[in-house]
């Protein structure tokens, strides 16, 4: 048994040796054929890597939001269809307090108002997205003050004119100078900078650091008076949950609570929308999955062309070596021996091409990561997969020429000049 396996292994090694000799004999042709597979494997490998890179970066973006969180908007949820009983969305501070009190497993909540603001200091100005919120915001969205402090409950109670800046805004206004304690003007009112947030990078092409945070009470008084219908309205509510809490369950409970509060009946549309980070992740995974499939499909076309090149050259090789095939048959080669010889030759061509394509893809991926700041992970799995896939391409496209070689009649093959 072991002897038999060793014999078979040695048989395959012989085929590899025969293949190498044959490929060296037509070196230029072999290189050009290999090039086709190389480009194909390069394209497919890079497409796979870019796709999974996109997935990674999307997940990072969602994690930057806060990992176990629900977002509630005052927008009628038209997703399910049904009768629309409200002309506009509803979400108030009282709803937020009710949720905090009645739903279990909540870590913290962060009611929000948002507005675009102008910041001016010493002749420099910047416009940014301001968020009026409560101390809970820091906890829910994993945001900490790297320098100075975050908004406090006292700030919220007194509607203090304080602001926490994101690193991008701080850099625009103050350069490298530490702005904590400085006074800036926001829409003509003086504000004290109390802190700078830690950098959170960017998600979906948005700079997460281009932000200014202030107490929600301050925001309500100064910037969003007319855009809201009621004095207690919110534009968004983050609800952070403790680890291990089931988000779908929590969403169901919150929906039930809010429906009761707004007396939504039966199939009527809710005046609010609840989304969880879990849903975002699922949707994004779907989108990036489709993106990846499209990329790989396009790249596969080049691999297909490479494979056709392999088939073409193998047919030429079989034709050129008809006499050799006849001789081998005369010397005792079975059909399977001849078939395997040419299959191995095609696979060797493809694996060499695949290995070169893989190296190229690793180089391309590294370049993308370094210069475009886009993660392109080519793991061991992708590498091994690329090589195995190349061998498979060889067997697939080398199959027909190999079978054709194996079906030659020994005497006719021998007579070929």
């Amino acid at each position: 048994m072991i002897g038999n396996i060793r014999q078979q292994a040695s048989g395959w090694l012989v085929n590899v040796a025969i293949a190498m000799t044959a490929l060296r004999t037509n070196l230029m042709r072999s290189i050009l054929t290999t090039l086709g597979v190389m480009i194909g494997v390069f394209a497919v490998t890079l497409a796979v890597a870019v796709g999974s890179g996109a997935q990674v970066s999307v997940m990072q973006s969602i994690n930057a939001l806060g990992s176990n969180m629900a977002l509630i908007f005052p927008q009628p949820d038209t997703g399910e269809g049904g009768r629309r009983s409200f002309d506009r969305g509803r979400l108030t501070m009282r709803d937020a307090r009710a949720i905090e009190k009645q739903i279990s497993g909540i870590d913290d909540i962060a009611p929000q108002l948002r507005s675009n603001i102008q910041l001016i200091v010493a002749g420099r100005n910047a416009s940014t997205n301001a968020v009026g919120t409560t101390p809970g915001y820091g906890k829910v969205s994993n945001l900490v003050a790297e320098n100075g402090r975050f908004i406090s409950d006292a700030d919220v109670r007194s509607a203090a004119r304080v602001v926490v800046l994101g690193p991008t805004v701080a850099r625009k206004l103050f350069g490298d100078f530490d702005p904590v304690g400085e006074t800036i003007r926001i829409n003509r009112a003086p504000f004290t900078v109390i802190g700078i947030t830690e950098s959170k990078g960017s998600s979906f092409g948005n700079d997460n650091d281009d932000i200014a945070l202030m107490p929600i009470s301050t925001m309500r008084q100064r910037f969003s008076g007319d855009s809201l219908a009621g004095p207690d309205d919110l534009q968004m509510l983050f609800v952070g949950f403790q680890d291990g809490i089931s988000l779908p369950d929590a969403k169901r409970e919150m929906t039930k609570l809010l429906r009761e509060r707004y007396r939504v009946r039966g199939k009527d549309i809710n005046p609010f929308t609840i989304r969880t980070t879990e849903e975002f992740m699922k949707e994004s995974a779907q989108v990036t999955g489709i993106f990846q499939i499209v990329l790989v499909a396009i790249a596969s076309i080049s691999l297909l062309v490479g494979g056709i090149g392999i088939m073409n050259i193998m047919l030429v090789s079989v034709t050129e070596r008809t006499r050799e095939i006849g001789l081998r048959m005369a010397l005792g080669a079975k059909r399977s021996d001849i078939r395997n010889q040419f299959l191995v030759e095609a696979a060797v061509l493809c694996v060499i091409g695949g290995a070169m394509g893989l190296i190229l893809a690793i180089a391309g991926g590294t370049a993308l990561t370094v210069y475009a700041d886009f993660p392109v992970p080519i793991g061991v799995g992708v590498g091994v997969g690329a090589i195995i896939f190349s061998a498979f391409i060889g067997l697939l496209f080398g199959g027909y020429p190999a079978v054709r070689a194996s079906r030659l009649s020994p005497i006719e093959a021998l007579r070929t000049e």
Partner: protein
Amino acid sequence: MALVETQDLVKKYELGGETVRAVDGVSLSIERGEYVAIMGASGSGKSTFMNMIGCLDIPTSGIVRIDGIATSDRDGDALAELRNQKIGFVFQQFNLLARTTALDNVAVPLIYAGLGTEARREKAKAKLEEMGLGDRLDHSPAKLSGGQQQRVAIARALVTDPVILLADEPTGALDSKTSEDIMQIFESLNEQGITIIVVTHEAEIADHAKRRIEFRDGKVIEDVAVNNRQKVSS
């Protein structure tokens, strides 16, 4: 039991709408240890006949038995095995693999016999040494003379220890001096008990054999024992 036996062997070809009977009802038997020359003009059917007893070509009708085995009962793979184990081929154009050393050329049949690398090298080396090419193991055919190449081919034919050596015009591409060397080798192989069947159109080559079979138009027209070795060999 005869080593090679044919009964009413027929091979027909369709050529330009006409049926050519290349071999037309040949029945003969060759015993173990014989040295047979098959003669005839080109187109006489001698090569076709040899291809059929070499299991390279399939008869239209009739029977070929090699060492008691009827080839018509066998499929392609079984015939490949039969060729590998019982028959050694020597061709006019040597048919050595280019860019492949003498040693590796000789080892080719042993690959298909399923031997491991070491065993193959050992046996191939021994056969090449028997052929006086012990110092040419790593030479590719391009670096060998015609006579040396044919000796490599003979070593290859013999490496699986077959019972029959089939040679199709083995000296057709060689000068007369070298041809003589090859014939000497055949004679000594025959003395060692190997059955040799040589296809040739040269009388001097046929004269080395012990039996001469002459083909014309696909039929045997003469089948005689010869004994004139003294005259030819020096």
